[in-house]
């Protein structure tokens, strides 16, 4: 099974140009989508869609890159650093409190902070991949996953708030 990078015909690196990736996806769809080409198979279209989805997203792109480089993930990525876990737990607690208090201002402040952490980890991840430091890359992928979940929860709270 070719890697998502191979399917889309792009270099296997973390800091892909996402706009160019999207354009490439559209071009390839002209060949792979059964509506565009009678000879195209449903399977080719499904594989292209899956590859595009994998590369579009930071987390799944990171996983795909590790796999393409032959590094075993060993299940879901986890960050076990006690200091980090403590920090995340405190952040989530604060978010829960703000949610209960319906303090949207506080929620947004927390979200901005976590977005900052996310960007910092993503930068570190990019550097780790560039220097093929895969142990560090795994750590940061784990962090991204925690931050992502936190921000997803912020979205839910925001939507609740809008409709209330």
């Amino acid at each position: 099974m070719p890697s998502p990078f191979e399917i889309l015909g792009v270099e296997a690196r973390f800091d892909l140009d996402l706009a160019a990736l999207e354009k490439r996806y559209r071009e390839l769809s002209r060949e792979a989508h059964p509506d565009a080409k009678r000879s195209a198979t449903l399977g080719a279209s499904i594989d292209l869609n899956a590859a595009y989805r994998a590369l579009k997203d930071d987390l799944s792109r990171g996983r795909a890159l590790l796999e393409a480089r032959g590094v075993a993930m060993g299940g879901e990525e986890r960050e076990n650093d006690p200091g980090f876990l403590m920090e995340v737990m405190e952040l989530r607690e604060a978010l829960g409190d703000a949610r209960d208090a319906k303090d949207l201002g506080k929620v947004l402040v927390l979200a901005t902070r976590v977005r900052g952490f996310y960007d910092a980890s993503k930068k570190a991840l990019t550097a780790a991949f560039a220097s093929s430091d895969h142990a560090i890359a795994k750590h940061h992928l784990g962090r991204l996953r925690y931050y992502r979940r936190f921000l997803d929860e912020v979205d839910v709270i925001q939507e609740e708030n809008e409709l209330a």
Partner: protein
Amino acid sequence: MSLLQINDPSAGPRPIGIDLGTTNSLVAYVSSLGDPIAISDCDGIVLVPSVVHYRGDRSLVVGPRAKELAVDFPEDTIVSVKRFMGRGAEDPETRRMGPYRFASATGPVVRFEVAGRGEVTPVEVSAEILRELKDRAEDELGQVGGAVITVPAYFDDAQRQATKDAARLAGLEVLRLLNEPTAAALAYGLDKKQNGTFVVYDLGGGTFDVTVLVLDDGVFQVKSTGGDSQLGGDDMDRALASKILEALGQAAPSPSFTRYALDAARAIKHALTDSETVTTELSHEGITQPFTITRADFDALIAPLLARTGAACRRALKDADVSAESLDGVILVGGSTRVPAVRAFVAKTFGREPLGDVDPDLVVAMGAALQADMLAGSAKNDVLLLDVLPLSLGVEAMGGVVERILPRNTPIPCEAAQVFTTYADQQTGFELHVVQGERELAVDCRSLARFTLRGIPPMAAGLARLEVRFSVDADGLLHVTAKERTTGLEQKVEVKPSYGLDDATIERMLEEAYEAGESDIEKRSLAEQRVEAERVILATDKALAEDGDLVTEDERTKIDRALTRLREAHAGTSHRILASRIEELEHATHEFAGRRMDRAIRGALRGKDLGAIEDTTKDARGLERAHDRS
């Protein structure tokens, strides 16, 4: 069928695009020049009201005439059936304000009790609308090929399946179920030949969709979609109808009052598009009440509905990773976007004025026709649509939690496999509960189906490796297959849909429809002509009673004779005779009608200032005509 056949008979069947709307439906095709054309009736009207009226003699009427009958036969006339598609009988949506008789309070499908038929399901009602559109297309084109039928982007699997079933029942070959906003973007984009990132805000009669897509040299890539399949113009009508019923002192309204209030609400809503204030007189079954409402009152009534669309818009932008500032345009679709408050809300939400050169009623059908033309292989455009799954798909795991298999906004077609194992020794069967939605608990999502896998080879617990493959096709419909990995045996998957009709029921309905066949078309024409005859007779009797002094003796003899002949034909069974007798009567009353119109206008002008006339005629039909004459 007319004698003059404009189309080249050797051209073969023509693919069509159908917009099956909550309020109105229409059918379009692509001309040999490549332009999409909406098919109109003999009066030049393209919109067919999505209304089906059932009569005691097992016949039925679809479209404008059915709509007129809704007030007098509220229970036997199904309006906005789209809201009931793919829903269970106990679904709260089916219990909202409406005049219907439901056959049962529970079960996987809604059943209306109507005259002449006993029970009908929403799939059957929709099939009648589709059949009417197909007939129209056949009248225009001769032979009709496959059809692209549009659905709200936010329709879930059950609602899509129900739509497809209705099309099959109507004898249509479905080329594709196409999302309405995507269809609109296709028609707009091909027309303007413009690239960029666009938002389609589609607020129809009963559903709301918002879609973010990129147009790039003929490729239309949907990036995200969101919405609410229970939100639309009907909800505005309901909000206003509550006020109307209150004004009429109807705390527990009869079906007839409910239908009257909903119709009046819609008329007032339309009037408020052009006027700041509407003053009218509510009058039904002897109760009369003056009623005034300002646009500001109305805007306040619908504000909560608009807020719901705003939340979906923001989420769609976020899912697409697009900011409002970076958009190249906002396309408005759906009749409800004519409401000024909706336009203002959209402008505020996206920080720009929506594009003004789109016909919100026609653009979806045009897009469907274009897509049908492409899929049928006669494409003149190098165009491709890439759409997404609107709602996440998952399975119910231990503790009722949803395990997500394919997240929302995944490009389709797509596929995902999940491996399950047995939990008991010698277990040979396995049940999977598939749900759709964004909530964490299965009970809060839409239950799609329970899939039972059988024929697993008996092994110790935990040894079997069941690979279940979930695929979503280009119609957005889910298919499930399963394989036991240690033995490689393909498993039999039995599907029990949570909502809608099972395959056996659909097959039976298809057989029945086939048997009824031709006689149905005859019956339908007869029913339509009978309704028209009743209308004309009633109107003539009323006119004679009111303005009998305007008729000469000679005219009166002719009118009376035409009336008698029409009544005879009404008792008969030939719709052709009936049609010609209706024409006869209309001919006999033609000059009389002109004199009545003159008298009415003189009466209105006498002793009143123009403002007062404007007020009394504001909601009256035929207003334009009256102005032309004065």
